[in-house]
């Protein structure tokens, strides 16, 4: 019988550990990966082309669907680019709300990441812990925008509406008794800010809990330490951003280095890894969760003390309120024009980026002065990370492929766009 030196394994496109739809063609030598060829694009929806055929505001909803676990950060980059083109700046309160929701989004994203990463590597419990907390934050999304995930909350000129005065409560049901209902609504008696503050107080403990399950766990360490080491030089070469770059020991965070909105007034630390392996990237993200809580607390404090508008009143860009519209002819015209034709931007090209949970998410808009972008290019952090797949798994075992996928925090909505 002839000896087979290498063989090919087809991983995906439908595989629970593929984090979506990824087809990975692996060339194996025994159990060692010699070469990995990711086939992406199975979730390609041509978001950028669709955006070229719609007025600017109608594409905000598409941004949610790119990286569908960090929805508002994607909106943020797109909205920032439009605002740069139009030369407008949202009111201060809207900027604080945006920063707060960016950090809520970061927690949402990192919770999904730790849940999925744990599940891939074999730690089931973390998943349940993480998803319980995610539920609370999604309620915040819902309270503020009406949608649990695809919020379309950020608009050019501010945010869609102010934070609600009361947090929605669970209602009576035959499936829960009064005692249970009272427990579930305990944090929901006050305003939304009270709810988020109560969450922050509790969540610090949850991070500790998750850490006790994983950080010193022997199996977790065996699976993560020294797997997929990326040197700082390679990380830059490969276009890594976000926790992937910081895990390799480069202190780079757009929130600090090129601050947008009110991040320059926030007090927070940037965690940095040392060895650039999967374990360091895990530690970096866990610390980011704590820092996010810190930022949210600062936002809550400011938002409590300061009121004000959350949207500009320039009706050439921002639609008038319904009340105004029914009172005033001019407002009616503005409303009609904005919702049929949209607004035109001055011609030009802009690039705006935010520190999304996965890395630098950027929107590059080419405008020729029309009511639609001439070309929209989205810079998705996951695309660059996925491109490094081959380099990161080469020489590792088949089981490590799953670890590497987990550590990259891949979501195919943004990779395939």
């Amino acid at each position, binding site marked *: 019988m002839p000896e087979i030196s290498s063989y090919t394994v087809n991983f995906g496109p439908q595989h629970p550990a593929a984090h979506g739809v990824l087809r990975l063609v692996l060339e194996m030598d025994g159990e060692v990966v010699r070469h990995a060829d990711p086939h992406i694009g199975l979730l390609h929806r041509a978001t950028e082309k669709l955006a*070229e055929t719609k007025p600017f505001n109608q594409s905000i909803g598409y941004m949610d669907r790119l990286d569908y676990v960090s929805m508002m950060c994607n909106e943020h980059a797109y909205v920032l680019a439009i605002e740069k083109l139009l030369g407008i700046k949202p009111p201060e309160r809207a900027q604080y709300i945006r920063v707060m929701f960016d950090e809520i989004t970061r927690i949402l994203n990192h919770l999904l990441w730790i849940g999925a990463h744990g599940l891939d590597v074999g730690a089931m419990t973390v998943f349940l812990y993480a998803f319980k907390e995610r539920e609370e934050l999604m309620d915040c999304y819902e309270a503020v925008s009406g949608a649990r995930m695809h919020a379309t909350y950020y608009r050019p000129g501010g945010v869609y509406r102010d934070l609600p005065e009361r947090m929605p409560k669970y209602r009576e049901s035959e499936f829960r008794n009064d005692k249970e209902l009272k427990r579930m609504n305990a944090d929901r008696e006050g305003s939304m800010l009270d709810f988020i503050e109560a969450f922050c107080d509790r969540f610090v403990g949850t991070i500790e809990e998750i850490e006790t399950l994983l950080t010193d766990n022997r199996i977790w360490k065996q699976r993560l330490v020294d797997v997929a080491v990326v040197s700082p030089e390679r990380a*830059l070469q490969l276009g890594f951003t976000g926790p992937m770059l910081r895990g390799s020991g480069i202190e780079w965070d757009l929130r600090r280095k*090129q601050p947008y909105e009110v991040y320059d007034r926030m007090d927070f630390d940037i965690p940095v890894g040392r060895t650039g392996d999967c374990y360091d990237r895990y530690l970096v993200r866990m610390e980011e969760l704590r820092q996010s809580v810190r930022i949210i607390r600062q936002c809550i404090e400011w938002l409590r003390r300061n009121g004000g508008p959350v949207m500009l009143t320039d009706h050439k860009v921002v639609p008038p309120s319904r009340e105004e519209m029914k009172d005033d002819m001019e407002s009616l015209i503005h409303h009609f024009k904005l919702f049929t034709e*949209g607004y035109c931007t001055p011609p030009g090209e802009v690039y705006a980026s935010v520190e999304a949970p996965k890395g630098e998410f950027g929107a590059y808009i080419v405008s020729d002065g029309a009511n639609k972008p001439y070309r929209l290019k989205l*810079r998705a952090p996951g*695309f660059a990370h996925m*491109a490094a797949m081959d380099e990161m798994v080469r020489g590792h075992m088949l089981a490590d492929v799953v670890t590497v996928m987990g550590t990259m925090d891949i979501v195919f909505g943004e990779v395939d766009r």
Partner: protein
Amino acid sequence: MARSPEKVLEQVRSALGEWIVDSRCEYGEAEVEVAPDNLYRTLEWLRDSELLAFDQLLDIAGVDYAAYGQDEWITDEATNTGFSRGVDGFSTGRLGLTGIYGVQPIETSTGRRFAAVYHLLSVRHNHRVRVRCFAADDDLPMLDSIVPLWAAANWQEREAFDLFGILFNGHPDLRRILTDYGFVGHPFRKDFPLIGNVEVRYDENRGRVVYEPVSIEPRVLVPRVIRDDNRYADPATQEASDA
């Protein structure tokens, strides 16, 4: 940012004067344009120069300028018949397309249709620059591959090739990346219809997935409008036309 975009632009210009075709600083962003012959060495210099040290390539964006500045409605004066319905007009998605609307030709000056835009970032010095390069030939757009400079360029060039058909000379593995296996055409070109050319369905008789021409009509919900808004007008040119 540590260094202002004007400063970055000035440094690039003073070092690479003759390679730079055009440069501008708008919206607080530095942008330079280079000829395709100088693309590789410009980017190489930007990466290696101690002064600028662009150590990261963030993105390569392909752009098709075929329909730049074209709109679908006459907005200068209202007609006595009213405006047309959006669905009847030409649209950029129908450039070069034959159908009930006739053919809308692609009108561009040669060599100004396809461009690749490189977004560079210097982590060391904390500044950015954008480099644009128009491919010399519209029918066979070709640029030099920069994979030897940044490993990140590999997939980004594959994407620009897949979506715009820009060929990258010297790329190690120029395959399609986002579209389907066996896909025909380059979908982000302005002459590629938004609804696509083929649709797929499962054929029970043949027991496999079959490809057929699309059965839906292309339509435009909101027409593309360019308004000469006086708020955005350049005051200098405005005065010149008034005089």
